[in-house]
C-alpha cells in the first residue's frame, strides 16, 4: 500500500523523519539513516569547523533530503535570520522552526513561534514548527500558513514518550495540515502510538542516535511508524471494560 507523507506538495516515501543530533560518528549516523529508510533528515547550522568532516557528504550518500532547523534560537528575530542563512546554505526553503523559551527544558515559546512562523511564511518558506502540545497554539500556527505542525510528545531527548495523547488527538482534529509528532519519543511503541493517534509522521533523533545500537533502533522505528500507521488505518477494536470471548461458548463435549 503506497502511503506517502505529503509536505508542501512533495511526496516523502517514509513517514519517519530522522534528526541527526547525538550520533557518535558520521559512520554510525549513516548506518542509522539507511536502516531507518527515512527520506528527510534534520541538520543544524553552525560556524564552519575546517577540521570537521562534512555532514552533507553523509546526507548525499544516503540520498535523503535536508531539513535545516533553527535550534538554539530564543527569539523570532534570531530564528528568522538563521532560516534565511539555511536557505542560502542548502538551497531549500523548508525549515524546522524552533524558538526555545527555556534553556533547561528546551520547550518552545509559543508567542515567538507564531511571530517567526508568520514572518517566514511571508518570506516564502515552508515552515514546519516544533511546538508544544497546546491545541490552540497548533491551530494558530496552521492559520498563519505553516505547512505542518510538529507538537512535542515530551521534552527533547527525554525519552518520556507522549505525555498527553489527548492533546495530540485534539490537534489532529483541529488542524488540516499534517501533524508530525516531534520530540519525546523514547522507543518503538511511542512512535507507533503517535501514528495510532492520527499523526501523519514522526520526527525523532536521540531515541535512535543515542540508543546502544542506533541502526537497530532505527530499523525498529521504521517498522513501528509503519505499524502504527497501518493500525490507524485498520480500525482498531473498541476498548471494553469486560471480556469478549474469542472461542465459542457452545459445542463443549459436556
Amino acid at each position, binding site marked *: 500500500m503506497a502511503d506517502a507523507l505529503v509536505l508542501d506538495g512533495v511526496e516523502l516515501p517514509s513517514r519517519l523523519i530522522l*534528526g*541527526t*543530533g*547525538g*550520533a557518535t560518528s558520521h559512520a554510525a*549516523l549513516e548506518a542509522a539513516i539507511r536502516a531507518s529508510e527515512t527520506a528527510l533528515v*534534520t*541538520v*543544524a*547550522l*553552525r*560556524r*564552519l569547523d*575546517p577540521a*570537521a568532516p*562534512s*555532514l*552533507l557528504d553523509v*546526507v548525499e550518500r544516503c540520498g535523503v533530503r*535536508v531539513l*535545516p*532547523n533553527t*535550534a538554539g534560537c530564543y527569539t523570532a528575530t534570531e530564528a528568522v*535570520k538563521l532560516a*534565511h*542563512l*539555511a536557505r*542560502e*546554505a*542548502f538551497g531549500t526553503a523548508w525549515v524546522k522552526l524552533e524558538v526555545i523559551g527555556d534553556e533547561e527544558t528546551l520547550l518552545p515559546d509559543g508567542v515567538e513561534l507564531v511571530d517567526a512562523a508568520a514572518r517566514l511564511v511571508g518570506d516564502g518558506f515552508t515552515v514546519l514548527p516544533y511546538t508544544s502540545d497546546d491545541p490552540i497554539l497548533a491551530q494558530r500556527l496552521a492559520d498563519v500558513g505553516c505547512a505542518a505542525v510538529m507538537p512535542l510528545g515530551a521534552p*527533547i*531527548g527525554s525519552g518520556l514518550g507522549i505525555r498527553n495523547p489527548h492533546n495530540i488527538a485534539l490537534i489532529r482534529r483541529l488542524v488540516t495540515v499534517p501533524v508530525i509528532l516531534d*520530540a519525546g519519543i523514547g522507543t518503538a511503541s511511542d512512535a507507533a502510538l503517535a501514528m495510532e493517534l492520527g499523526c501523519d509522521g514522526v520526527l525523532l*533523533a*536521540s531515541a535512535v*542516535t543515542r540508543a546502544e545500537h542506533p541502526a537497530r533502533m532505527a530499523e525498529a522505528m521504521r517498522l513501528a511508524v509503519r505499524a502504527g500507521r497501518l493500525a490507524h488505518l485498520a480500525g482498531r477494536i473498541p476498548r471494553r471494560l469486560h471480556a469478549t470471548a474469542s472461542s465459542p461458548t457452545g459445542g463443549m463435549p459436556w
Partner: protein
Amino acid sequence: MQLVVNAVASTVDEGITVADVVRMLAGEDPRGIAVALNGDVVPRSRWAQTRPAEGDQVEVLTAVQGG
C-alpha cells in the same frame, strides 16, 4: 587587514572577497555553506563581488548534526 571570521580575529589581504574567505575555510567545496557579513546574509551569487572592510565580522556557517 583585520577581519573577525567566525569570532576569530584574522589578518587577511586587502580586497579579499567573501568567496576568498569561504575558500580559506572550506577549500574548493562550497556546498552547504552560508555567509553573514556583519549579521546580514550574503547570497551565494554575491560572494565574488562582496569585499569585507577593516574590522568586519564574517560568519561562515555549514551543516552540523542537529535534531
